[in-house]
């Protein structure tokens, strides 16, 4: 099937391009910082969507790949003097490796058991790194500011990482679109709909699920490197925040799991709500409670998310809003 014919692809791409170039057009730093967080969330949510939306497996600990990537990246850059580009690739590969090992171990679990296991994994990795001296133990690692000199100084580095995140976001959205209309994607969706039936239809479910898990981990790993490089430090508490995992799920579910546009809308909407809440004195400390409440409301009333709801409400949009 020629996926480029479908409008959803162009809608997604145009929205991303407009959003991505907005800070460049306005030249505003605030816009750039806002867009940075939105793009980061879109990329994280779209990655998670490959596992959650296509294969139907809920990972409650997906941020572990982001955190691990951050650690690997900072370590390679600060201790071994690697360039950012290579460190970013290495962060993605390490995340993929972790996902591969985990996939072989825990993807035989189904439903809630898998979800629980992923929480355990996040906590286990955090505890491990907390005690792992080469990574700085509980204190973590800091970058020497002089590193930024290679990238034209701190101000330039911020643009550089912004564009890198933008590129990754575009890449993951295009990739997840292609995946959705591929033979492999069809196998994943068969697993989501009925894993036992999929097996009887000939889908090699163990390897398909593992590959999906690996694919959903690579970009978060790479983003982790970029994010913590920009942040100039990484510490266990910040790298493996469980609530970031939950927010990722909220984004995917809010927009609509299994669609390409869903995570895009969901992440953008959620980030906007969150930044509003963070600045509002009333809700400042309640953002996590609100994320939880939102998740509850979605699951109860619009389980297929906004895009899913629109698609089933207006059947003409079915092929438009993939």
């Amino acid at each position: 099937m020629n996926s480029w014919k479908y409008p959803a692809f162009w809608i997604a791409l145009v929205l991303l391009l407009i959003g991505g170039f907005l800070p460049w057009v306005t030249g505003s730093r605030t816009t750039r910082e806002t867009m940075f967080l939105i793009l980061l969330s879109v990329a994280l949510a779209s990655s998670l969507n490959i596992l959650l939306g296509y294969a139907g497996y809920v990972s409650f600990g997906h941020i572990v790949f982001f955190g691990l990537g951050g650690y690997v990246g900072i370590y390679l850059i600060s201790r071994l003097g690697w360039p950012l580009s290579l460190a970013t690739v290495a962060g993605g590969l390490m995340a993929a490796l972790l996902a591969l090992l985990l996939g072989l171990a825990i993807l035989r679990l189904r439903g809630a058991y898998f979800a629980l296991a992923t929480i355990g994994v996040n906590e286990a990795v955090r505890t491990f790194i907390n005690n792992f001296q080469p990574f700085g133990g509980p204190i973590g690692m800091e970058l020497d500011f002089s590193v930024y000199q290679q990238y034209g100084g701190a101000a330039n580095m911020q643009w550089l990482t912004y564009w890198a995140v933008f590129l990754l976001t575009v890449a993951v959205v295009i990739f997840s679109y292609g995946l959705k209309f591929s033979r492999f994607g069809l196998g994943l969706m068969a697993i989501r709909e009925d894993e036992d039936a999929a097996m009887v239809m000939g889908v090699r479910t163990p390897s398909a699920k593992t590959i999906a898990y690996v694919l959903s981990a690579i970009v978060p790993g790479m983003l982790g490197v970029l994010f913590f490089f920009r942040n100039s430090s990484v510490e266990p508490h910040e790298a493996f925040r469980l609530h970031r995992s939950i927010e990722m799920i909220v984004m995917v579910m809010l927009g609509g799991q299994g669609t390409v546009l869903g995570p895009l809308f969901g992440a953008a909407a959620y980030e906007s709500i969150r930044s509003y809440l963070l600045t509002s004195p009333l809700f400042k400390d309640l953002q996590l409670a609100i994320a939880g409440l939102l998740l509850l409301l979605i699951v109860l009333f619009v389980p297929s998310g906004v895009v899913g709801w629109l698609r089933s409400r207006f059947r003409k949009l079915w092929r438009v809003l993939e």
Partner: protein
Amino acid sequence: MSLQQYVENQPLLQVQNVSKRFGGLLAVAEVSFDLPQGQILGLIGPNGAGKTTLFNVITGVYTPTEGHVLFRGVDVSGWPPYNVVRLGLARTHQIVRPLNDLTVLENVMAGACYGYAQLPLREAREVALEVMEFLGLADRRDMLAGSLNVAQKKRLELARALASRPRLLLLDEVLAGLNPTEIAEMVEVVHKIREQGVTIFIIEHVMHALMNVSDRVIVLDYGRLIAEGTPDEIANNPQVIEAYLGDPKLAEKLLSGEEEDV
């Protein structure tokens, strides 16, 4: 004799002394039979006799507690279903299992992509459209599978299985819940499938239809194989009539086709 010929001369399916136990229940007990290429083999038996369980053992959904299943001469007992079907087997489910949130076309394409045929997406689409045309599902291609009615879902099960271009097709009560016209259409379809060289193993409660399509029939009762023969022999086998219904008169009526369903 070359290996190729040897394999071709083997019965397509050999079930050897197969038992399946669920806790204290022996659902299938020491069942043995062969299914040669090109035949239609019927399987009957009262509710709970172990028919579906036998299908599940053959397809690898369950590992047999004892015994072996040989498909195309290969011992597939204990293989996961996705490896068994890749040797050329496909099945329908008694309780339909559509991929609800995918379209009818996508459902059938998945069969063509992943079953025996192992087609790339584009060819899978061609095959799927062909099979859907054959089964009268073509005008439903973009509907969600979950929104089909029961008769259509049964056809979808069959379409998905057929799209994988199997050597052996296992049909688990594809006629149940259909009205007489639909049954007649489906019987016609089964005949056509056989003409394409597909071997068929079919479980059915709609007796006269089963007697009509089968070359040979085997009978399960409490997990045991109690009879095997041509439809005529089975219909006149007092042991079958007794075991199957416990009421010979009702049985006769059923087998002659006066009653539609049990």
